[in-house]
């Protein structure tokens, strides 16, 4: 018994020693745990606090409403329309396909949309609403709303989308908005927003930053799956600024309709202020289609159209100005003193220079003509002669003064400067000497000379306003912001010379032999100064002549002459200048002058410069909810 007890004592002794060792070990390890907690919860607390907040809080950008664009009478040209879209949420729909099928019975849902949503649903989280269709009509919205109880997971959401109430009418002035491309990303976080749209053309592009506004921010609490639990705080952004244009949309619409099926361009300008009342380029595109998103087929149709509906022909289309250039040649000659208004030039229907023979448009010739008659009848030989006398460099200098060959500075993207050639220009670009025959051709606005319809309108305005350097503008300035509008500088042209030109231009319309005498204004009391122009695109070849093609009308459309016309009125007290180009329209007198006269008369009737309320009188607060 005693022995057994001793043995047990030995066991107990070893047990006690070792159990205490392990007990101490346990205590030490628990101490390690406490130390670890101290490290994580005290020493590293700040770092993990930040990480926990990063987990919990998401910052959502809020897109501000884009600034509206108004015409000079305050009519909305570009605005933000509520865009109703129908969405479906997988989590709430018991069966996505069933919900979509039921929805398809109520409103049109294409098979393509269905398969797109089913595919997207697999990638997205169950609580993310997927857009089924956008731009629902009111009727569709109400049909869905009535049936909502039978459509689990389906909801109507409202967003803002850019809308252009006048559709194609203002297309080239306004431009359009569409989704941001990779190369357009800047540090503005708004551009990163999915579905955010920016101006891609027209004033939408030029004034994009002002129209865009600045982003608002919403801090939301999210869970691990990204579901929003609630909003913590919200900073509203700054809405985009309102943009007031000089355009009179009613006049613009009239001009567009006057063009009908023809493609071309018209510009109506206030000769004193340079305000552009209408800027037309036909055919046009519908900017609403870009907001909505073009289908590939629509896009292909737009870019493959040979009449170039995407091109703003007024500012980026260049044409040989033809006879509308003759005022520049005449003024240059008068200014240089190489001819007087009364000196006559004999026109036998052609002009010889060395071995070259230069034709007048009238084969039988014009006889003895002075400057007024030469303008009235657009005698080419007269201008060959004076061009030869004054030389190309002085013609170009005068053309530049009148606004040709230089950018006008209008608030539109990628404006073209056209071309007014000089001897040094030819040497520099072609490495060839200027030849005198080229001066003759340039003197009647052919050859190298190129101009935009907008430049032709500027030229007419400068001729009309007594030689002041007005520049075209599309945006109305606030008097408070810019002070008194600065009087345009004088170009230093002789009043007398301008009167001679004006008289010639008046006779183009009102003279017995004027090239535009057939297109009288309905009101005979309105005195109009005009000038026709016909720009050769391609000569009728000898082969074509032999096969019976004599007339422009027999040629394919794209080889016919461009028809041009510039004018201003009232001639005695000018207010508006108009320039019209009808692409491949044939002759200026037949195709362009009637269009220009109708637009001019409508302009005078509406008198947008005189009747529009001053900008300051309108609401100073340009922003709307």
């Amino acid at each position, binding site marked *: 018994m005693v022995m057994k007890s001793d043995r047990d004592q030995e*066991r107990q002794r*070893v047990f006690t020693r070792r159990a205490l060792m392990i007990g101490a070990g346990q205590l030490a390890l628990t101490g390690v745990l406490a130390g670890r907690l101290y490290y994580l919860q005290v020493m590293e607390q700040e770092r993990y606090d930040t990480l926990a907040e990063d987990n919990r809080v998401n910052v959502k950008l809020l897109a501000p409403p884009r600034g509206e664009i108004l015409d000079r009478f305050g009519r909305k040209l570009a605005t933000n329309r509520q865009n109703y879209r129908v969405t479906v949420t997988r989590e709430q729909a018991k069966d996505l396909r069933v919900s979509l099928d039921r929805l398809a019975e109520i409103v049109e849902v294409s098979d393509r949309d269905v398969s797109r949503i089913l595919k997207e649903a697999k990638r997205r989280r169950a609580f993310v609403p997927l857009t089924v269709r956008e731009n629902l009509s009111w009727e569709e919205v109400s049909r869905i709303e009535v049936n909502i109880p039978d459509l689990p997971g389906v909801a109507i959401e409202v967003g803002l989308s850019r809308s252009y109430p006048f559709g194609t009418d203002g297309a080239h002035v306004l431009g359009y908005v569409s989704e941001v491309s990779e190369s357009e990303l800047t540090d503005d976080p708004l551009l990163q927003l999915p579905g955010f749209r920016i101006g891609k053309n027209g004033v939408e592009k030029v004034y994009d930053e002002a129209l865009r506004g600045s982003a608002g921010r919403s801090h939301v609490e999210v869970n691990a799956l990204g579901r929003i639990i609630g909003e913590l705080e919200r900073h509203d952004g700054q809405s985009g600024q309102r943009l007031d244009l000089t355009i009179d949309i009613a006049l613009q619409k009239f001009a567009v309709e006057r063009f009908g099926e023809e493609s071309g361009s018209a510009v109506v300008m206030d000769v004193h202020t340079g305000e552009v009342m209408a800027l037309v380029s036909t055919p046009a595109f519908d900017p609403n289609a870009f907001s909505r998103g073009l289908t590939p087929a629509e896009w292909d149709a737009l870019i493959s159209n040979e009449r170039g509906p995407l091109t703003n022909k007024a500012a980026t289309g260049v044409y040989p100005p033809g006879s509308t250039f003759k005022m520049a040649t005449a003024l240059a000659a008068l200014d240089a003193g190489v001819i007087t208004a009364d000196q006559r030039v004999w026109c036998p229907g052609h002009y010889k220079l060395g071995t070259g023979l230069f034709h007048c448009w009238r084969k039988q010739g014009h006889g003895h003509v002075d400057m007024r008659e030469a303008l009235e009848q657009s005698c080419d030989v007269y201008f060959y002669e004076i061009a030869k006398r004054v030389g190309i460099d002085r013609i170009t200098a005068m053309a530049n003064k009148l606004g040709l060959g230089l950018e006008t500075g209008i608030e539109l993207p990628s404006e073209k400067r056209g071309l007014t050639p000089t001897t040094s220009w030819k040497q520099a670009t072609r490495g060839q000497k200027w030849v005198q025959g080229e001066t003759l051709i340039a003197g009647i606005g052919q050859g190298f000379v190129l101009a935009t319809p907008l430049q032709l309108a500027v030229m007419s305005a400068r001729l009309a306003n007594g030689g002041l350097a007005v520049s075209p503008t599309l945006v109305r300035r606030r008097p408070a912001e810019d002070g008194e509008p600065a009087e345009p500088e004088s170009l230093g042209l002789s009043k007398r010379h301008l009167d001679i030109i004006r008289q010639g231009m008046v006779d183009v319309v009102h003279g017995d032999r004027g090239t535009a005498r057939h297109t009288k204004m309905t009101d005979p009391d309105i005195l109009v100064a005009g000038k026709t122009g016909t720009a050769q695109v391609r000569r009728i070849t000898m082969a074509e002549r032999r096969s019976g093609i004599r007339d422009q009308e027999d040629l394919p459309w794209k080889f016919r002459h461009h028809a041009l016309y510039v004018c201003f009125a009232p001639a005695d007290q000018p207010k508006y200048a108009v320039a019209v180009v009808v692409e491949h329209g044939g002759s200026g007198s037949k195709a362009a002058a009637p269009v220009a006269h109708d637009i001019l008369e409508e302009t005078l009737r509406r008198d947008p410069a005189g009747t529009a309320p001053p900008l300051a009188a309108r609401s100073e607060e340009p922003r709307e909810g």
Partner: protein
Amino acid sequence: MAMKETMGLGETELTLGRKIALLNWAIVLLVVMLAAIGCAMLFSAAGGSWDPWAARQAIRFGVGITGMIIVALMDIRFIMRWAYLAYFGALALLIGVELAGEVGGGAQRWIDLKVFKLQPSEVMKVAVVLGLARYFHGLTHEDTGRIVYLLPPILMVLAPMALVLRQPDLGTALILGMIGASILFVAGVRLWKFALVGMAGLAALPIAWSFLRDYQKARIMTFVNPESDPLGAGYHILQSKIALGSGGVFGKGFMNGSQAHLDFLPEKQTDFIFTMLAEEFGMAGAVGLLALFLMVLAYGLFVALQSRNQFGRLLAFGLTINLFLYLFINVAMVTGLIPVVGVPLPLISYGGTAMLTVLLGIGLVLGADIHRDFKIGRRGPEED
């Protein structure tokens, strides 16, 4: 009875009333407190609802603590008599799920008892302590020095370990091994033998690595550098550390843990419940909880040292080690000290088996305390 004389000092029979008086009610209260904390955390984990966890956990605890007290009041000689049977019964259950798992074509680790799912591997942790305590009770100090006598207990540990590894459940297998090793150690097995086995074990590590399943390897690799893959395998550990760290000293407040409530914290009602407690109550709450557990552990060690029979010593000690391993592995895991091995925090985490086996273990320790003055012969209660 003749036994009375042979047992000398110790009382041999205790009335039920005497046992109830001897029961350490302070420890019972401590256990109730821990379970109450667990229920509160489960209430928070459900976003302030008794459903689906807190209420069920409370009911289980009610059943469990009743069982614990019943076990505590059982005569230790009765328990000793049934110790081997308990061990082999648990082993049979383990083999049973192994076969059922194979038949079912998956790694089934539990038996569905409708009320809860019984995990035989958890039961085994208590059973192996019972079995080893019973075995070493019968060995003299000299016997423990002989290799022949060491073979049966080593087999008793290795057999369930192998079965659990096959499930595969690396964490539980290692815990079984550690429980076994520490009982062998305190039973008096010579130190150099441990050194030998330890070195052999180290040498076998590369071989063991090749036997690990891919997910087990991934867990260990993730542990080495959790931040390298924050949305993948390291996500759990990283989010747990963020929750802990952002809890700070005093926490974000009850039911205000953003990491837990916004679901950044995985498994917040089971393995990561300690993280949630530490997020909501801060370091103060976490260390407080550790202190409560430490008191239970200290009590277990005290009972082991005070017991006058080897069975009671080893039983109390082994079960204390079991509780400690649960606690340490779980907390070390959620604080990123060791790889994620899927061990719950006893009495706090949601889950049936772990709570019941831990309560059973504490019941046995309380019983060893009540019967600590019993002297029992080496050949056990059957010897007379």
